[in-house]
């Protein structure tokens, strides 16, 4: 063996071969983790690109009345002069619609822009014949042009289905005109009710469980059940909401008991109030658990220092525990709200309207929400609906990102506060 120094870790050669295999294992795992990350990124990119693919692209449209017929040589209503706009209206608008227009204000008071939109909506009336995705628009141009050639009176327009107009227009049976204003308002109303219902109750329950409740069997069972509730599928909450809010509490949720306030007699309890309360139930356990975690994270020394100068429990909670943990509580609440914002199933179960063109006006209105609108549009066969569904998805994603961005902002504030300690 010679004079090689032996120890419990083997010879130099053995050590070398071991470190080699250890390094190799290390490398393999690193590659596995990188692959995992890449897959996640890939799927995200796929999701986004498939949405964007549908939001932009060519559409073949056909006018009922070509703008060229209204004013010779002008292909778009936007190029009309004011006199030409008023002339076209006088000559082509039916008397019924004209009366409706005039009942708001006289023609002189209408701006050019308003006149253009009236003419486009009631005279020119473009109809969508067919739409193409972004990739088709970029790579199959000849086929698209061929289609347009064959269709009489059709013309090609590259459009973004997501536009400011899309956000503020109400629902319509014509995808070219439809917008998501009703759905956005519905979603915002629902969020408001959900927050107003779940936040105070959830925080109150969490404070009781964390700060007051003693550690006994009953409270442990309660705690376990709250954990279980947070994992119950959302459709179950929909059934619960249907049984309680829509059916059992109908006089209240339909507004019948406050008859003077009831704005919509046909809702039958399938109202914003019912929807908001149902989603409130859904996120209640999440808010409770999150608030408990926030309170648990506060060191006991803070409680002790408050009790030490003769504070009551409530004074300790209100002046010290809540101010310290409110950022964290709100962060969790916002994340819970963004879950509620994306929920479809429970609202479908309690009977949210799938087609509604009237803005919700209060607690007792019928409603639809963004996810429901998307669900409804994406299940239609006509191509253009898929485009506006994709546009609505983008709107929903932006809304979610705003909510989550607020949550991240609040979380950063918590971290800053911590670094001060």
């Amino acid at each position: 063996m010679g004079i090689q120094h032996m120890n419990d870790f083997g010879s130099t050669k053995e050590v070398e071969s071991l470190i080699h295999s250890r390094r190799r294992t290390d490398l393999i795992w690193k590659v596995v983790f990188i692959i995992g990350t890449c897959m996640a990124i890939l799927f995200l990119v796929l999701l986004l690109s498939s949405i964007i693919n549908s939001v932009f692209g060519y559409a073949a449209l056909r006018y009922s009345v070509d703008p060229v017929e209204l004013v010779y040589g002008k292909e778009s209503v936007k190029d009309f002069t004011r006199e030409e706009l008023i002339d076209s209206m006088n000559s082509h608008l039916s008397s019924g619609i004209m009366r409706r227009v005039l009942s708001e204000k006289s023609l002189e008071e209408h701006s050019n822009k308003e006149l253009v939109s009236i003419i486009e909506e009631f005279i020119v009336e473009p109809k969508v014949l067919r739409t193409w995705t972004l990739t088709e628009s970029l790579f199959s141009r000849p086929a698209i042009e061929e289609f347009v050639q064959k269709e009489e009176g059709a013309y090609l327009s590259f459009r973004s289905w997501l536009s400011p107009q899309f956000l503020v227009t109400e629902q319509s049976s014509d995808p070219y005109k439809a917008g998501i204003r009703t759905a956005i308002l519905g979603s915002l109303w629902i969020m408001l009710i959900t927050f107003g219902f779940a936040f105070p109750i959830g925080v109150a329950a969490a404070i009781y469980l964390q700060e007051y409740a003693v550690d006994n069997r009953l409270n442990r069972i309660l705690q376990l059940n709250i954990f279980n509730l947070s994992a119950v599928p959302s459709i179950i909450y929909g059934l619960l909401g249907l049984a309680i809010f829509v059916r059992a509490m109908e006089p209240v949720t339909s507004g019948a008991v406050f008859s003077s306030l009831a704005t919509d007699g046909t809702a039958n309890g399938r109202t914003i109030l019912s929807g908001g309360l149902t989603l409130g139930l859904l996120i209640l356990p999440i808010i409770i658990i999150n608030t408990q975690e926030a309170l648990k994270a506060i060191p006991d020394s803070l409680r002790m220092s408050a009790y030490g100068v003769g504070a009551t429990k409530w004074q300790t909670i209100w002046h010290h525990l809540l101010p310290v943990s409110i950022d964290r509580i709100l962060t969790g609440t916002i994340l819970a709200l963004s879950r509620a914002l994306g929920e479809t199933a429970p609202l479908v179960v309690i009977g949210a309207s799938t087609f509604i063109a009237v803005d919700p006006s209060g607690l007792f209105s019928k409603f639809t929400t963004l996810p429901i609108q998307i669900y409804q549009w994406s299940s239609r066969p006509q191509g253009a609906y898929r485009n506006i569904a994709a546009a609505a998805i983008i709107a929903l994603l932006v809304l979610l990102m705003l909510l989550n961005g607020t949550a991240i902002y609040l979380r950063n504030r918590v971290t800053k506060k911590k670094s001060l300690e």
Partner: protein
Amino acid sequence: MNKLQRTDTSMVTGTVAYAGNTRRVMKQEQRHIIELNDVSIHYGDFRAVKDVNLSIPEKAVTAFIGPSGCGKSTVLRSINRMNDLIPGSWIKGTVAFNGHDLYDEEVDPVLIRRKIGMVFQKPNPFPKTIFENIAWGARINGYRGNYEELVEKSLRGAALWDEVKDKLKENALRLSGGQQQRLCIARAIAVQPEVILMDEPASALDPIATAKIEELISTLRNDYTIIIVTHNMSQASRVSDYTAFYMVDDHRTGYLEEYGKTADLFLNPKNEKTEQYISGKFG
């Protein structure tokens, strides 16, 4: 085993000379502000402390010393009913404050904690401004005086005023550890307590900050009764007038081994255990 050297009121007169320091002349009639009678404290089934009998003289510093787990902190916390906050804790015997049992059903622990303040091992100011740290306790207890004066007086009382008078609106957590601890003492005296309990108040501080706290304690003894738990025996001998030495038995239950004037206890311990402990043979 559990011999008690209860301090007799007639004994606490005269000048106590110890370790080169001349202690002040004690008052002729030293009153006992707190008296523990046969106190046993339990956490669920576990008996943490048994049969403590102890009379704590007014406006003096009493130190609790002893090895880890001997229950000195537990006894301390029973005096302002802080133990109530620990689930499952219960007490037998009586803790009398000015002659009234603190554990009487009619006694509100919230009120007790204003009269018997507390300073904790780790400095724990509120994450609020320095001003608010002092004013808050007074406000929740319904203080009617001038808050600026109260804050200044309390901070001066805790020897902190000169260091913080220009930054009362700053967050207290920006102060150094020693300053934070003196702020906690200021916060405790702002609600005008009679007794201040200190649970190892200097153990998380550096030597210079510790010296300041000790200096502060010797000033505060003129106005307050102070009970201090410490594991630092030289600190106990420096700051206290009386010392209670706790021991722990085979069942991990703490008990009071010896109690007396600090000078007597450190120079002429009556118990073998006390002598071994203060000479550093264990603990």
